[in-house]
């Protein structure tokens, strides 16, 4: 059972989508992440830098088939923070629903 913990860093919409997508994968290439989320390179880089600075994700640069590829993956810290955040969101929704049921 994950402890609910609202995370201000993850919560903003774009970052939540990025972390949500990464949480469902072992790793994702930068270009695919950009295409899936419909973001520009610079906007995505900025958000990734913020999350990387917090220790939530790791960016790996490698050369494969003569092409430079960038892989992004959540760190265990990032995965834990995401799970805690989702649990906190569920708790907020559940509390509102139980209040509504009692009213």
């Amino acid at each position, binding site marked *: 059972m994950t402890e609910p913990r*609202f995370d201000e860093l993850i919560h903003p919409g774009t970052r*939540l989508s990025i972390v949500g997508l990464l949480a*469902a994968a072992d790793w994702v290439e930068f270009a695919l992440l950009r295409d899936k989320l419909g973001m520009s390179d610079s906007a995505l880089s900025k958000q990734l830098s913020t999350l990387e600075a917090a220790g939530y994700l790791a960016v790996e640069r490698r050369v494969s088939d003569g092409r430079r590829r960038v892989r992004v993956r959540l760190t265990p810290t990032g995965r834990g923070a995401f799970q805690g955040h*989702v649990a906190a*969101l569920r708790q907020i*929704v559940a509390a509102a629903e139980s209040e509504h049921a009692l009213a």
Partner: protein
Amino acid sequence: MEPQITPAEARAALEAVDRSRLRVIQEIDLPVWYWWGLALGWVALGFITDLKHPWLTTAATLLFGAVHATVAPRIANGRHRTRRLSVSADIAGFRTGRLVLGCVAALGVLTVGFALAANADGARHPVTVASILVAVIILLGGPRLLAAIRRNREAALDAAR
């Protein structure tokens, strides 16, 4: 720290998380080359079997099995359709690989059944005929099987809401 968001905002955030998961579920698949390789290998094996050289059939079967045993464990789980992402095991489903390999084994049994039927019908190359039929099933049915698995994973996501 107490979150300063409303239940409606929390609900919207959870929906955004689900949309992200759905984007990854859409990537559960096998590379197209796997189905083509399997189908062509199947026909080649059938053709070689019809040549009625036991040593050649044995060698071809071992080669086919070895190649498949090398390739399948990495991709049959549906997590590596492309080299652009690796779907996590819990999103792809832990049974996907076993299901795909189980279907491949069932197709082996089906090939024998088709070959026996073709032989009884007087076909000159019964195993080739049977393997061509199964190859068509692989090419048409393989992608459909993975589509069904994706729908199943989406339903599992719905159920978890």
